[in-house]
């Protein structure tokens, strides 16, 4: 338990070493420090986790130091460990370590940023540190620090290939869009502090229960919605989802770690951490479910028509996080965290194997220029296949366990059970469909390119470990998330009811239809897409249901227009006038400094005369 501090400290030290010395470190040292620091962190997390369960799974604190102490307001840098934090820490350090190891190979011969090897790992380590502070922080201030820290690292890593202006644009877009959500979240946190008078998370949740439950829940609703706003921005949910597909401009390990496995799930963590607020206000919880359902629906349709392999995976990430939000919204708290964990395994696996494919094809990402790769790239093919069946949630893979619980819990929802279950089931069908499409187009059919797989142990090793985790992770997940969240762990469901069987059949149906359409070509997809209605629909889906277009016209263009006509900045005039008045007064004042003795004497006499006249009451 004493080692808890080491978990975030190791990546921080790694970051400092890499960042300060990045020009002087040989690549090997940078790789060892970069991946090793996260490895140390993962090891410490493992020991801490074992201690935690040995000690009876009681939440514990570790006070590092008091940040500041001002008039009764004394936020501490204090780490808080409970089952939720431990599950998140395990995912961040464990999956993070595997991705770091993979990245040591992936970035080795990087053609765009050959000098950036140490810099890349510096940012990655800083990200792991910030993410750990986010999940381990015991008060809202530390949580917010981690929250913004991961946002910064996301920005830095999306724009890692900074020589291409398009990547810089993608990075800025991600930063600004998530900042919109962060503003909501900051307002929510301020409001919590004002209403409850404390920033300690556990204490504030207890107080919230005492003050609001049973009574007026308006304040809980407002805070819940504001926090949801922050979560929506960070987790790329409707309506702030537009940044995630563009975030794929970063190197593939970044997409795997930040934009699939960990950072984008921070919103899920936030809502799970603040679950009392959402339990007090059922309306806020319903909003979470609706956001999740809308996102998983929109994203799974969009994924069906994408041509860039990473964008397919990005939209699939959005829809899977939609499942998590949906789970939180329908009260399957533990299932959401469970799905977060299994998703981290199989989505990291999918991204890393996609990275291997991309690398083997010399940075080709268009799936229609791939094809027939399964013979040449056996390891990426096998791992992507495993990732895909987990994503589609075939029985006994990790994705199946978590998704099944979510959907069956949704069916039992008090008011909207059938709608929720139906929507999620259609999305499950779509998930299987687009996954099948991607697999068939990338790995089967005729060969369209030359592939050279030059990956070594440090690249396929993590793939194999993630394969095992994806396949088997579902089995040990039940214990990890059992006792933190209020639903008392994952529910027990019969798998032989009609609903359960239909739920289970959906992925098979999706795969079958996918095979018919894209494999056997029963329907001519090209002809369908070329028809007028088909083309319009395809473009609508391809553009992410018009959200980008909407924001471009509703926000970006008006802001740019205002910026253009307001180049001189109207607000600045206040300050410019102040400056001019001060300068003028100074000029007048300096005229009296003539150096003439008689002028000074006259001034003095005049002043004195004035003074006496005022004292005597003649004037004034």
């Amino acid at each position, binding site marked *: 338990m004493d080692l808890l501090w080491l978990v975030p400290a190791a990546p921080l030290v790694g970051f400092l070493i890499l960042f300060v010395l990045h020009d002087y470190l040989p690549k090997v040292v940078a790789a060892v420090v970069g991946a090793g620091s996260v490895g140390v962190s993962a090891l410490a997390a493992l020991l801490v986790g074992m201690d935690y369960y040995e000690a009876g799974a009681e939440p514990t604190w570790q006070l590092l130091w008091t940040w500041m102490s001002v008039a009764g307001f004394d936020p501490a840098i204090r780490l808080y460990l409970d089952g939720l934090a431990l599950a998140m820490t395990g995912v961040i350090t464990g999956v993070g370590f595997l991705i770091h190891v993979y990245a040591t190979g992936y970035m080795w011969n990087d053609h765009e940023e050959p000098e950036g090897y140490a810099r890349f790992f510096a940012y990655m380590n800083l990200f792991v540190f910030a993410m750990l502070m986010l999940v381990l922080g015991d008060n809202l201030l530390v949580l917010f620090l981690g929250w913004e820290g991961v946002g910064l690292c996301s920005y830095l890593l999306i724009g890692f290939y900074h020589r291409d202006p398009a990547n810089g644009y993608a990075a800025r877009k991600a930063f600004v869009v998530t900042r919109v959500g962060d503003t909501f979240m900051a307002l929510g946190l301020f409001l919590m502090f004002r209403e409850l008078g404390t920033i300690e998370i556990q204490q504030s949740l207890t107080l919230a229960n005492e003050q609001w439950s049973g009574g007026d829940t308006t304040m809980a609703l407002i805070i819940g919605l504001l926090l949801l706003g922050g979560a929506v921005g960070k987790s790329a949910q409707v309506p702030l989802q537009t940044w995630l597909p563009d975030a794929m401009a970063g190197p593939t390990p970044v997409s795997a770690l930040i934009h699939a496995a960990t950072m984008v799930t921070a919103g899920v963590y936030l809502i799970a951490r603040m679950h009392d607020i959402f339990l007090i206000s059922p309306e806020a919880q319903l909003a979470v479910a609706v956001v999740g359902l809308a996102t998983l629906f929109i994203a799974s349709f969009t994924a069906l028509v994408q041509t860039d392999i990473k964008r397919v995976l990005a939209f699939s990430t959005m829809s899977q996080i939609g499942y998590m939000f949906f789970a939180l919204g329908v009260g399957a708290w533990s299932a959401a965290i469970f799905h977060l964990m299994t998703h981290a395994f199989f989505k990291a696996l999918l991204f890393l194997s996609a990275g291997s494919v991309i690398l083997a094809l010399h940075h080709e990402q268009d799936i229609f220029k791939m094809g027939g790769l399964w013979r040449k790239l056996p390891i990426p093919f096998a791992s992507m296949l495993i990732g895909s069946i987990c994503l589609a949630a075939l029985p006994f893979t990790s994705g199946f366990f978590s998704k099944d619980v979510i959907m069956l819990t949704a069916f039992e929802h008090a008011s909207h059970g059938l709608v929720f279950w139906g929507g999620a089931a259609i999305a499950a069908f779509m998930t299987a469909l687009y996954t099948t499409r991607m697999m068939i187009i990338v790995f089967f059919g005729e060969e369209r390119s030359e592939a050279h797989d030059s990956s070594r142990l440090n690249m396929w090793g993590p793939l194999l470990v993630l394969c095992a985790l994806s396949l088997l992770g579902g089995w040990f997940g039940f214990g990890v998330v059992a006792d933190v969240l209020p639903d008392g762990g994952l529910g027990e469901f019969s798998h032989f009811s009609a609903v359960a069987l239909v739920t289970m059949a959906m992925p098979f149906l999706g795969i079958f239809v996918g095979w018919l359409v894209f494999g056997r070509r029963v329907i001519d997809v090209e002809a369908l897409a070329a028809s007028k209605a088909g083309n319009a629909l395809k473009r609508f889906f391809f553009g992410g249901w018009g959200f980008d277009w909407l924001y471009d016209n509703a926000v970006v263009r008006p802001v740019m227009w205002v910026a253009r006509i307001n180049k001189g900045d109207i607000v600045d005039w206040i300050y410019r006038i102040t400056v001019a008045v001060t300068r003028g007064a100074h000029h007048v004042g300096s005229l009296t400094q003539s*150096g*003439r003795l008689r002028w000074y004497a006259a001034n003095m006499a005049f002043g004195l005369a004035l003074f006496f006249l005022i004292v005597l009451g003649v004037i004034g």
Partner: protein
Amino acid sequence: MPVAVPIEHVLALAGLLFLLGLIGVLVRRNVMFLLMSLEVMMNAASLAFVAAGARWAAPDGQIMFMFILALAAAEVAVALGIVVQLARRFESLDVDNADEMYG
């Protein structure tokens, strides 16, 4: 038996002398006249003190006059030094020559 002069008259005289001295300070450019005008101002103040002391039969007014006398002597000692410097540097007694001494 000397005829008692009313204090109003003395104060009016003192005020007149002070005003004359002030005008002298303000309008004369020759530093010697400037110093002489200063002496007139100080003596006007002294006269007011003495008159007030006589009016209320208190010694303070005359003691104040002694102080002013000492002050005037000291002032003259310092001022004459400055005058000598001024005369050496500018070869004139015009006080406006020293107007470049400002920050």
